[in-house]
């Protein structure tokens, strides 16, 4: 799929040029070798310059990159076994969220993840990763299963937001999310949340309350999409770039604001440039955090979880 972003394109072209020259060199033109080395140095410099100086709007583009690994991609790369479970037992099966029993380096966990589609057809069934109430209720059903059997809960957040539609409102979108926030705040098992791509407001938080919340390096997490914010506050969706800057929605921003506990490094250029390396990095972070959480008694976890959320926000009195 050709889906490169504007600021990626020059690098991609350069890399292709290098590969072409390299195969030429291999084919018996050793004199090209020097030229290849020079180009590689230029590419390295350009790569560093590009990714060290990304603005927030460019990071939003990376978080939404059409080639970015999604929940099921990571599941296939980080678990040694995954049994997917389906349905909310009330209304339907919401394919915008996946859930099941996963084994990650010997840790048996209940895993939930919002799931975007890779192409138009898949996006129709996945609804672009935007859950209906039944998605949140399926998630809650599996959370309770985790609690019943004492298994940690791992959630992968990747959604533009909860779906704003007629059926979603009729079936209680707000109440479904609210219920999850309440239940997750007291779920008596360790909860590890990872924002892997887009953390879209309440739709993300609906599976995003936990003991430890971490973010992939180029993920974003925001109270509203930059476009939505721009439309309301600037009266112009085109001001999304300014809104993205103002909202402070990148992983380093959220670390600084104390909303997330850690950042998972991604390969240079983002997870989609090397999905295996990204998955390894994610797996390492999951295992480390699960090890730590597993050592903490549940009552202590619950007490700390309440303290964690109690301390969020800035005000004076």
């Amino acid at each position, binding site marked *: 799929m050709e889906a490169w972003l504007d600021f990626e394109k020059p690098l991609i072209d350069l890399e292709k040029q290098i590969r072409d020259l390299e195969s030429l060199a291999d084919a018996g033109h050793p004199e090209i070798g020097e030229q290849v080395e020079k180009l590689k140095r230029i590419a390295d410099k350009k790569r560093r310059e590009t990714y060290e100086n990304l603005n927030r709007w460019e990071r939003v583009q990376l978080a939404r990159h059409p080639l970015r690994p999604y929940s099921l991609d990571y599941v296939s790369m980080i678990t040694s076994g995954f049994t997917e479970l389906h349905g909310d037992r009330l209304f339907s099966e919401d394919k915008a969220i996946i859930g099941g029993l996963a084994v990650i380096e010997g840790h048996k966990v209940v895993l939930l993840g919002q799931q975007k589609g890779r192409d138009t057809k898949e996006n129709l069934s996945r609804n672009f990763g935007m859950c209906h109430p039944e998605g949140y209720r399926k998630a809650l059903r599996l959370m309770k299963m985790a609690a019943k059997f004492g298994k940690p809960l791992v959630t992968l957040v990747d959604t533009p937001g909860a779906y704003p539609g007629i059926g979603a409102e009729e079936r209680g*979108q707000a109440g479904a999310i609210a219920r999850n926030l*309440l239940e997750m705040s007291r779920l008596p098992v360790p909860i590890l949340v990872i924002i892997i791509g887009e953390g879209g407001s309440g739709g993300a938080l609906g599976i995003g309350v936990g003991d430890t919340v971490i973010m992939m390096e180029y993920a974003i997490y925001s*109270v509203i999409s930059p476009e939505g914010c721009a439309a309301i506050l600037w009266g112009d969706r085109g001001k999304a770039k300014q809104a993205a800057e103002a909202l402070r929605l990148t992983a380093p921003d959220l670390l600084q604001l104390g909303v997330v506990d850690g950042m998972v490094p991604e390969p240079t250029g983002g997870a989609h440039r090397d999905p295996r390396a990204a998955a390894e990095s994610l797996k390492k972070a999951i295992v480390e955090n699960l090890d730590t959480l597993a050592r903490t008694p549940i009552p202590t976890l619950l007490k700390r979880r*309440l303290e964690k959320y109690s301390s969020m926000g800035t005000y004076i009195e």
Partner: protein
Amino acid sequence: MNWFRKIERGLSRNDKRDMPDGLWRKCDGCGEIIYERVIHRNNWTCIKCGYHFMVSAREYISMLADPGSFTEMDSTIRSVDPLNFRDSKKYTDRLKSAMKKTGLSEAVVTGTCDIGEHPACVAVLDFKFMGGSMASAVGEKVARATKAALEQRRFLVIVSSSGGARMQEGILSLMQLAKTSAWLARYADEGLLYISIMTHPTTGGVTASFAMLGDIIIAEPGALVGFAGPRVIEQTINQELPEGFQRSEFLFDHGMVDMVVPRTKMKKTLVDVFDFFGDIEKQVEEKQKPAILKTPPHIEVRADRGANGPASGNRE
């Protein structure tokens, strides 16, 4: 001018705040011109068509609390500007003008009071303060009111009117959903009763947290209540919304609220529920009886070791 001052003196400070434009008001529901004091006496609803006027947080409290029983708490909590946020205006300027306009320090007023002689904690959002939006300060005040209700064993009543999270505080405002919900979980764990009242309009983050978590959820007639705003939904699905969509009666028909109650009957409805559940002390005694008496025999064993895991005890 003398006659005007005389009438003005007869009104409380709060009344004045709600009636800056003279003594007659046109009803937005039926168009009738009505003497404002008549509307006021009718709990700010139209005597002709029942239309519910928007009221301030303090006004709403005065309609629920027994006279003289309200004590405000955390009135000094104020918002700051953690992101240094600026769109067409600076967030700090928006805050200043909201304070000036409403006379409030933030978009929620909290405190303790008696309602029909039952001890209660109340939190009432004020839409006129930046659309009743959920700032860090708002979340903090609601969480503290919940905590106070828990510690003092009071009923909890939250009256919502809100456009959702406050964008100017970014992700920190989103976290207030988790904060308030977490405290409501602790409150619920103590077997205490929370009534949520939703007024026009209640949308976004407030519905996706405390407004939809009441043991009993009440909506005022005709209030717009929903997760997503109607405009957002229309743009997403690219079609017009059905008549009455996301109004209280629509939510009632879909099983999302217990009752649609006009403001004139709101206090009586609360008192009836509080009377039924009795005073909170009695409830606590009830809760402290050995759990085994309340547990059906076939799940006794599971309840003893905590059906939901090690820390949950027999909470459920």
